[in-house]
């Protein structure tokens, strides 16, 4: 069966420090991968998605970047954190073999990382 891992579970970082959050998926190959951010009292905002190694699409301009060095590894980074980067970060995956355009592949979410920037 497929599983998705995120770490760390919680993180407290000072403003201006770097960030690296990691997400890995097991039990599947060539998944689509996603990074979402959930700010307090707000819904989920898609930050990045990836359909393959080295292929990253950014949904919103921001202080963050993403990389996919391996098929089942997705990393969220920042060189200098801002206070506004605080939030709950969720990684998700879906099957990369979608078949017909009208089909849908469910997204499965990881447990999340709670980031507090002070």
């Amino acid at each position: 069966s497929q599983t998705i891992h995120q770490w760390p579970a919680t993180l407290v970082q000072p403003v201006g420090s770097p960030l690296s959050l990691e997400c890995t998926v097991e039990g599947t190959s060539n998944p689509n991968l996603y990074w979402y951010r959930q700010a307090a009292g707000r819904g989920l905002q898609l930050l990045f998605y990836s359909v393959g190694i080295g292929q990253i699409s950014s949904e919103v301009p921001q202080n963050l970047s993403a990389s996919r060095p391996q098929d089942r590894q997705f990393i969220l980074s920042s060189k200098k954190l801002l206070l506004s980067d605080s939030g709950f970060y969720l990684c998700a995956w879906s099957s990369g073999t979608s078949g017909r355009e009208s089909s849908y592949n469910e997204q499965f979410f990881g447990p999340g990382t709670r980031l507090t920037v002070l």
Partner: protein
Amino acid sequence: AQSVTQLDSQVPVFEEAPVELRCNYSSSVSVYLFWYVQYPNQGLQLLLKYLSGSTLVKGINGFEAEFNKSQTSFHLRKPSVHISDTAEYFCAVKAGGSARQLTFGSGTQLTVLP
């Protein structure tokens, strides 16, 4: 582009009472609709989804939702809630045939009171 509106940010309800969480969407194309649940400090879990066919969809934990195309709604219902249903609920939409992203609503916090 599609959007999702969850009209109620907080819904308190007593245990064993019925509940309805409202969701409206807008899209110029056909859509797929979803409800996710998030327990405190956890990821999201799929409750149910509408892809096609019957407009009444049954999900896990006794929840169901009805797709109403004319009203562009996908309200979530449960006839009798339990304390354990306390969580945040997200409605989401994906445009058929588009890229792979989901668009989420801002969420509804359901609090079940004893």
